[in-house]
C-alpha cells in the first residue's frame, strides 16, 4: 500500500498507448460516450445526470461510495436497465439497449458485481452460454466448447477446470469464471464491476495480466473498484461518482491517494484515522495482548478434517487476529469450524477456556460467536427481506416476548445499526436486495452488533465496501475488540490485515503455518511474500 500511493500505472500496466499528458488524456475516438444520463428507482435518484467516456485501449476506473450509482450506469450500458433520460453513444452512434443481447451485439461485455452465472452449469457451459457453437441441426459442439475454453483459459492464465460445475467452485473461482466469460466474447468494451473483491494478490495479478492483454488489443475497460490501490496499478483515467453525479474525470498519473479519497467521500472532514489509513497503515491504538492469564477467547488445537490438516491458533479477548492465505488454503473452513458449520474429526476447540463443541450455528451463536460470511448473497442475507428483518435474524431469541416477535425492539436494533454503520437506505424497511453492495455488507455487520459477541468471525469483511465505509467498518471492528470481543478476520487484502491486526496467522493447504506479529512485517509486499512462501515444503511455490 505504501508504494501504491505513488502513481504507477504507466510502469506496471504497460498499455499500448500510455497517457502522456492531461491535455491529450481524452482521446478523440471514443468507444463509449455518456451524456447527462438519469435513472431513478422509485424515489431513489440513482443517477442524476452523469457524463462518462471511454477510449480504446484505456483502463478507466469508475469510483465512488457505495450507492453512488456506478452499478446503475453499468446496468444501463449492459442493457439490463434503461435510463430515464440522457444520451448513450457507442462508437459515436446513439444507442438505447433494450436487452443484454443488444448490448452484447454492440460489443459490450460486463462482469457483474452480483454474480450472474448459472450455478448448475459447468465453467465451459457458462462461458459459452447463449453463444454455443452448434451444427446445422442445433446440436451443441460440446468438445469444441471444452477445447476452446481450455485454450482460452490457458491464454489468459486462468486456473480453472472447464468441466467443473460452477456451484461447486469456491467464491473466488466463480468470480474468475465470470470474468473469463466476459473476456471470451469478442468485446470492444469490457466492464468490470468490482472484479477483485475477493481475490488475493496472487489471483489479482492473473486478472491484471488478462486486462492488459485485452487493452493491448484496443479494448476499452471500465473498471469499478473499492480497492483504490488497484486504480494506480491499472488505470489511466479515473472518474468519480458521488450521489448519482459525476465529481470529475482525472488522469491517474496526476492523482494521489489522498486527493482521490477526498473526491470520493466529498467535502466531509476526513477523520484523522481515515487519512492515516489511506496513506498507509500508520500505527493506531492497538490493544496489547493480555498476558495476565486470561484464557483466550478462542483456542483451536490440532483441528483436522478432510479439508483441514492441523489448525492451531489462539485469539485473545479484545484481539483482532488475521488469517492470511491464498484462495483455497482453508481459511473459510477454519471459520466454519468455529461457527459449527463443520465438525472436526480431530482436535479441540475452546471458547474462553471452556471446551466448545458446537453442533451448528445455533450453538455457536448461543456461545457468543458471530460470523460475517464471505458470500453475503448466499450466506449473509435474505435478499427479499427488509434491513430490519435481516438484522433481527440472529437475535430472534432476545427479541421474543411470550412468543411474540418484538417489533419495537427489532426496529430499535436496526435503527441503531443503520446509524452506527451509516447504512444508506430509505429506511429500515427497505428490502436489502435493492441496496448497493457495500450497504448490503454493512447490514450483515449490523446483524452481529448487539449484543456484543464474545468472538467475531469475519470472512472478507470489506468486500465491495467503499473506502469511507470501510473505515467505518474498521471502526466497528476495533470498537468490538476494545469492548473485549476476540476477532478472527480472513482477508485477501493484506493491507487490510496489516491495518487491523496485531497478529496474523498464515494458512496454507488447510494448515496454520505460522503466526507473525505485525511488527515482524516490514511491508505489504513482505507479507505477500510470507503468505506465498512460508511453507518451503510446498512444491511449485513461486518466489
Amino acid at each position, binding site marked *: 500500500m505504501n508504494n501504491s500511493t505513488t502513481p504507477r500505472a504507466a510502469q506496471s500496466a504497460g498499455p499500448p498507448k500510455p497517457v502522456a499528458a492531461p491535455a491529450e488524456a481524452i482521446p478523440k475516438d471514443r468507444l463509449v460516450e455518456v451524456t447527462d444520463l438519469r435513472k431513478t*428507482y422509485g*424515489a431513489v435518484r440513482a443517477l442524476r445526470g452523469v457524463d462518462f467516456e471511454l477510449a480504446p485501449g484505456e483502463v478507466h476506473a469508475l469510483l465512488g461510495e457505495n450507492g453512488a450509482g456506478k452499478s446503475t450506469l453499468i446496468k444501463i450500458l449492459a442493457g439490463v436497465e434503461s435510463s430515464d433520460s440522457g444520451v448513450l453513444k457507442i462508437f459515436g452512434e446513439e444507442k438505447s439497449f433494450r436487452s443484454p443481447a443488444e448490448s452484447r451485439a454492440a460489443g459490450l461485455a460486463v462482469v457483474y458485481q452480483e454474480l450472474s452465472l448459472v450455478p448448475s452449469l459447468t465453467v465451459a457451459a457458462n462461458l459459452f452460454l447463449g453463444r454455443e457453437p452448434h451444427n446445422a441441426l442445433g446440436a451443441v459442439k460440446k468438445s469444441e466448447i471444452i477445447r476452446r475454453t481450455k485454450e482460452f483459459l490457458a491464454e489468459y492464465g486462468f486456473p480453472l477446470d472447464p468441466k467443473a460445475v460452477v456451484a461447486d467452485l469456491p467464491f473466488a473461482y466463480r468470480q474468475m469464471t465470470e470474468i473469463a466469460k466476459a473476456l471470451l466474447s469478442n468485446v470492444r468494451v469490457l466492464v468490470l464491476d468490482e472484479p477483485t473483491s475477493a481475490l488475493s494478490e496472487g489471483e489479482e495479478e492473473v486478472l491484471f495480466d488478462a486486462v492488459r492483454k485485452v487493452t493491448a488489443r484496443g479494448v476499452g475497460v471500465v473498471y469499478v473498484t473499492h480497492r483504490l490501490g488497484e486504480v494506480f496499478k491499472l488505470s489511466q483515467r479515473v472518474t468519480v461518482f458521488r450521489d448519482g453525479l459525476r465529481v470529475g474525470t482525472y488522469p491517474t498519473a496526476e492523482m494521489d491517494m489522498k486527493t482521490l479519497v477526498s473526491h470520493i467521500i*466529498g467535502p466531509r472532514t476526513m477523520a484523522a484515522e481515515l487519512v492515516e489509513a489511506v496513506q498507509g497503515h500508520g500505527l493506531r491504538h492497538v490493544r496489547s495482548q493480555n498476558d495476565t492469564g486470561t484464557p483466550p477467547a478462542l483456542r483451536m488445537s490440532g483441528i483436522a478434517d478432510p479439508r483441514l490438516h492441523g489448525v492451531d491458533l489462539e485469539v485473545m479477548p479484545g484481539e483482532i487476529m488475521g488469517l492470511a492465505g491464498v484462495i483455497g488454503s482453508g481459511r473459510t473452513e477454519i471459520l466454519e469450524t468455529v461457527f459449527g458449520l463443520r465438525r472436526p474429526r480431530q482436535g479441540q476447540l475452546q471458547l474462553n477456556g471452556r471446551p466448545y463443541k458446537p453442533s451448528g450455528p445455533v450453538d455457536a451463536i448461543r456461545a457468543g460467536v458471530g460470523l460475517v460470511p464471505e458470500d453475503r448473497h448466499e450466506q449473509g442475507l435474505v435478499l427479499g*427481506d427488509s434491513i430490519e428483518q435481516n438484522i433481527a435474524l*440472529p437475535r*430472534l431469541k432476545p427479541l421474543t416476548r411470550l412468543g411474540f*416477535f418484538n417489533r419495537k425492539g427489532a426496529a430499535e436494533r436496526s435503527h441503531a445499526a443503520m446509524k452506527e454503520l451509516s447504512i444508506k437506505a430509505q*429506511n429500515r424497511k427497505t*428490502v436489502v436486495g435493492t441496496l448497493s453492495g457495500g450497504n448490503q455488507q454493512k447490514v450483515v455487520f449490523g446483524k452481529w452488533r448487539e449484543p456484543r459477541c464474545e468472538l467475531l468471525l469475519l470472512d472478507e469483511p470489506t468486500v465491495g465496501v467503499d473506502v469511507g465505509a470501510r473505515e467505518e467498518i474498521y471502526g466497528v471492528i476495533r470498537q468490538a475488540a476494545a469492548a473485549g470481543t476476540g476477532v478472527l478476520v480472513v482477508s485477501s487484502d493484506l493491507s487490510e490485515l496489516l491495518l487491523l491486526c496485531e497478529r496474523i496467522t498464515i494458512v496454507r493447504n488447510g494448515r496454520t503455518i505460522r503466526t507473525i506479529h505485525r511488527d515482524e512485517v516490514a511491508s505489504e509486499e513482505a507479507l505477500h511474500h510470507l503468505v506465498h512462501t512460508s511453507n518451503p515444503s510446498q512444491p511449485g511455490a513461486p518466489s
Partner: protein
Amino acid sequence: MSQTAQASTKAGADLPSTRTLKNLIRGDRPYVLYAAFAVLIVAFSLASPVFFSSSNFLNIGRQTALVTIIAVGMTFVIIAGEIDLSVASTLALSGMSAAMAIQQSGGNWLIGTVAGLATGAVVGLVNGLLTTRLSIPSFLVTLGMLGIGRGIALMLTGTTPVVVNTIAFWDTFGEGAILGIPAPIFITLLVLGIGAYLLHFSTFGRKVFATGGNATAARYSGINTRRAKTVAFVITGALAGLAGLILTARAHAARPDIAAGLELDVITAVILGGTSLFGGRGAILGTLLGSLMIGVLNNGLTLMGVSSQAQLVVKGAIIIAAVAFSRRK
C-alpha cells in the same frame, strides 16, 4: 457522514417498504386482487337473488372451511420453501382415526378429537422429518405419504365408512354454533387468527420466512431451519386432522376415500392468495382471500345455474384473469 445520513432520511419517506399491515393484507399481490374479489361479489349479487344473503355467506363459510383451515398450515409450509401433497389423505386418515376412537371409547368425542388431531400431527411430523433429515424433496415425501395415508385409511375398515353417533361431536365440529357463529366457521376464524399471529407476529413466523427466503442465510444466522420446516409440516398435519374432524362431524361418519384431490384446492388457495411457490413470501390473509375466492366462484356459479362443465371453464378463466390483472402495474 452526515451527508449519507441525510440522504437516507430523505429517501426514507418514499420507497416501497414492507409495512406490516400492508404486508399482512396483500402478501405479494397488489390490491387489484381484492378489487377482483369485490367485482365477483357484485356480479353474483346482481345475477342471483339469493347470493347476497347472510345465510348464503354462512354457506360459503362452511363450504370453504376445510380448504381454509388446511391452507393456513400450507401457507407456512410453502413459505418455508416446501410443499405438502398429503393433506387430503391425512384428513381422511385422521377422520377415520377419530371416528374409530369414538366408537372404541363408547362415544367419547374428546378422545376422538385428540386421536384425530394427533394422527394429523404425526403424519406431519413424519413428513417433516423425512424431508429435513433425509433431504428428500418434500414433493416426493408427501406424495408418498399421500398414498400411504390413503391406503392405510382404506385398509383400516376395508373401505367401510365409520359412523359417529355422538351428538356432542356433531355439534362441536359440525352443526353447533359458538357465540352464534356456526361451529366450522368459528373454528376457521380461530385457526386464521392463531395462524396470522404465528406467521406474522411470532418469532416462529420470522424463522419460517427466513428459512424460505434463504435457507443458508437463515442457518448462518442461527435458525434451526429443519425445525422450522418440521413444525410447519406438523401444523399442517394437525390442521388437516382438524379438517377431518369437521368433515366427520358434518357427515356423521368418516369415509376413508373422502376429500381426494383436496390438496390441489388448498395449494391453489395459498398461491392465489399471493404466497410464492418458491418460498419466502406470503400472508395468511391472502390465503383466506384465495380460499374465499374459490368458494365464492363455486357457490355463485352454482346459484346462477351454470353447468358444471361451463363452471370449469369460467373458474379457470377467472383465476387467470384475476391474477393477470393484479400483476399488471
